[in-house]
């Protein structure tokens, strides 16, 4: 199954974030609790961690981009070689935890 990682929220006062750094390359397997990406809010860093195992398949939004809370920023899959759909609108959200520091 294919999942989309979305910008997590709500975070008080935050409408938009900037993507600071992706952790890991396309094709890499992630285990639960591994850090996927770091995001910047207007005053804090947000660490986003995987909520289930999966493979990072596609980065939709690169470091430096600005995104709304809820926007899809990467695609993950359960297995390494599942075909990615052309349309990303109907994809389930990847379970993920986040911590604001």
């Amino acid at each position, binding site marked *: 199954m294919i999942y989309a990682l979305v910008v997590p929220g709500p975070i008080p*006062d935050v*409408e938009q974030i*900037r993507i600071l750094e992706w952790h890991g390359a396309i094709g890499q397997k992630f285990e639960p609790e591994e850090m996927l990406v770091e995001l910047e809010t*207007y*005053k804090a860093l947000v660490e986003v961690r995987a909520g289930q195992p999966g493979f990072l398949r596609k980065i939709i939004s690169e470091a430096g981009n600005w995104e709304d809370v809820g926007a899809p920023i990467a695609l993950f899959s359960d297995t390494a070689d599942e075909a990615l759909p052309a349309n990303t609108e109907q994809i389930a959200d990847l379970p993920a935890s986040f911590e604001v520091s």
Partner: protein
Amino acid sequence: MSDTATTPAIPTTRMFFREAIIRALAEEMERDARLILLGQDIGAFGGSYKEFVGLQERFGKDRVRDTPIAEAAMVGLGVGASAMGHRTLVNITYMDFLMLGLDPLINFAAKARFKSGGQIRVPLVVKTTAGAKGQGVAHSQCIESWLMGVPGLKVVAPSTCADAYGLLKSALREEGPVVFVDHKRLFPTSGEVPTQEGTVPIGRSRILRPGRDITLTVHGYCTRIALEAAELLSAKGISAEVVELVSLAPLDIETICGSVSRTGALATLEEGQLVCGVGAEVAFQVNERIGPVPSCRIGPRAAPVSSSPLLEAATLANSGTAVTAIIELLEK
């Protein structure tokens, strides 16, 4: 051909409001070795709104100094350092506590050039954060109108990242004291700032949205509320021209009067108290220059701002109250 058609698009970079401030400070510190910064928690902590992050690391503890919680001493030190050849920015985290620093600011900094026959200059910027955001009676006030009538003092209040950057740089090049007023609710915002270094001149207002039926003057965070109100009014067939003051002292009364001459009516919007407020001054100066027009002041209730979010919201003006007041005015 209009200006916009002939002017090539200026390259811009998107940044958070605090980053626009950091950029302005870093560039001016690079440009002028005499510039020092004083404030509570502006060093290793990087400022209450993270608007000083990295500056102490980059420019050292001599130039970026943490101070005790003692605003009278902070402004006093800044005034003295500036009078003796430095250029100083003093950061007052809550504008409410600028009250403690008004003596050195008003009685010395603003007067020094006059009483010394021009021999003493006080190139001082007081950057301070105004406005209500859940912190109650003494951490929410907007007292910029108190400062507008002090000869020798300039007062600016940006609402965008680009103006925060450009106005702060201009303020840091002035020969006399400037109060730079930002707002707690501006810090979560982001915006485009010209990529190339530049300044925004002090003393000019800006027509943000053209309109035919009424002029709505505003400054600081309320500018966002004014633009919302103008949009709501537009849906009701009322065309409001939004004039952002940008600079409160000096006030660009020519731009304001030009607008009111075209629209024939004036509304003012502010978060500070209306009695002897910014709007009262704008309206009277308009009256003196172009004669009476239908006018109204829109602002908070005459009450302190509560730390209860519900009561805070009930105290302040919003786009809905602005729309109601403007419709009532135009129907009179």
